[in-house]
């Protein structure tokens, strides 16, 4: 598996956690930012045959530089097919995409996400947020998803969402299975504090591993419900030296990667 790195940032570890779920040959739908970097890392290491599509229409993409916009023309240059949203999200809706990426302002213990508003009344939001975009489609229909949370606090990991924009395991147990989405639901959640997975039966989120320098106590204190600890919970496995080297070469200008 290669020599473990000792010099890496938590952001790099976060990206490696994304890459670890990308299997060779997977069809993935990507945007920009962290998921794009994570998928490119996988493509340049263990998953050279990953097939990436973007929401705007380019299919079989291999961007020559790291784009900031999901509609950057670099996605079309060198793509193997280009259409529109019907072609890209249509593949998602048909259940033909293996892996998609999600984020949100709030997440609950069943991996449901809110990206619509903060407040109690939909028509009078305290804070209005972007909305679903393609997230509801991706969460419902991609075979698997990975959720990245930009912050880990009690107002982000909440007991109850203000609005369920994007379904995870709904109310847990077999609720998701019963409603009959093409996709299976979130594989894991990555936050700045650690990695979380979902119980096979109850579908409740648990702590799978914690990042170096983070304690289980700290995660519990920053989570809005009494989060369970996985039976094999340990420190998150360090990246390999190769992974760190490849990542830094992918973003030499530091567009998305923070230094140090």
């Amino acid at each position, binding site marked *: 598996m290669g020599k473990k790195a000792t010099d890496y940032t938590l952001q790099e570890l976060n990206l490696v956690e994304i890459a670890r779920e990308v299997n060779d040959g997977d069809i993935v739908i990507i*945007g*920009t*930012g962290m998921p794009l970097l994570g998928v490119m890392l996988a493509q340049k290491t263990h998953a050279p045959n990953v097939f990436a599509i*973007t*929401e*705007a*229409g*380019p299919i079989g993409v291999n961007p020559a530089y790291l*784009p*900031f*916009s*999901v*509609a*950057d*023309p670099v*996605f*079309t*240059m060198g793509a193997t097919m*280009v*259409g*529109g*949203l*019907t072609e890209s*999200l*249509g593949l*998602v*809706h048909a*259940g033909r995409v293996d892996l998609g990426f999600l984020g949100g302002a709030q997440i609950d213990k069943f991996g*449901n996400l809110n990206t*619509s*508003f903060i407040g109690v009344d*939909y*028509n009078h*939001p*305290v*804070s*209005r*947020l*972007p*909305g*679903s*975009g*393609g*997230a*509801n*489609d991706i*969460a*419902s*229909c991609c075979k698997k998803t990975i959720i990245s949370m930009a912050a880990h606090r009690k107002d982000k990991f909440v007991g109850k969402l203000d*609005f*369920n*924009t*994007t*379904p995870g395991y*709904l109310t847990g147990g077999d609720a*998701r299975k019963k*409603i*009959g*989405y*093409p996709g299976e639901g979130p594989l894991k959640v990555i936050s700045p504090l650690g990695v979380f997975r979902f119980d096979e039966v109850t579908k409740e989120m648990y702590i799978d591993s914690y990042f170096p320098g983070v304690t289980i106590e700290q995660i519990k204190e920053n989570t809005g419900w009494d989060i369970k600890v996985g039976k094999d919970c340990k420190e998150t496995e360090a990246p390999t030296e190769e992974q760190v080297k490849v990542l830094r070469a992918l973003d030499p200008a530091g567009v998305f990667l923070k230094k140090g």
Partner: protein
Amino acid sequence: MNNKVMTAKDAVSQYIKDGDVVYIGGFAANISYALTHEIIRQKKKDLTIVTSSFNEHGDQLVGAGCVSRIETSYFWMEVFGQCSCFRRAAEKSIPHSVQIEEYSNFAMVARFMAGALGIPYVPLNAIKGSDLAEQTAWKGDKKLKIMSDPFGSGTVHALVPALQPDIAIVHAHRSDENGNLQIWGQVGDIPWGAKASRTVIATVEEVVDGDVIKHDPNRTCIPDFMVSAIVPEPFASHPKPVQGYYNVDRDFIFNYIKLAKTEEGLKEFMDEWVYGVKDRTEYIEKFIKKYGWQRFQGLKSSQYSAASVNYGA
């Protein structure tokens, strides 16, 4: 032959009425800022704006007070930042309140597709189970329906209604004078959104001879009989890209986001780039004068051409 070439000013004043449902095409690319800015200059009111995802084109229309209702899946600036006018209107009714009917991205495209094909509604695998199926702004039970598959699979689906806007505003790469619109690269939601609408007004990078269109008919997304007006406006999509013409102007987008955070900053931006110019030609002149020829040229696309194909019989 029917020459539809006209100015943005004439196209907007002739074809857009207060209260219209206006589809604004483009998924973060090929967006006609030349026409959205003209709508703002003409102070159109009470519009319902619809598209799969809005960025600053929608934000500026909301900030200028042109919009009462929004149907979309997304209203933000991707990883660049937030749409502040959208937030001020939704949270504080500044300059006035707006209502937001929120669907998923694919649901919006499916609604346009249905509108274009004359299909009354589309059953979807998404939306069900989420609060998108529970909450509504003004459509009530007409937003969508949850229904069991009548063919007996036992699965429930969200049925979303077809959407047929009064008018589509799009930006194409090129057209002839009759309005056969050609777009290449990522087409986003433009083909379905435009064909779903009762008519289309389009800005184009170039007006070409009809023979150019007829030698490459696969690239035509929208046939001329659906189009009412063609406005030749190079750079009309700036700061968003047009494949093969120019790339995203990141600095310009960041500057807009920074300014739009306050009402004063928004006024400064609008006075400079919308009210302060009479058309896109003046906009380009201002851009070059302010930021220099080099930055303008720096936005131009690299060369990456297709091999030619034979369409012969």
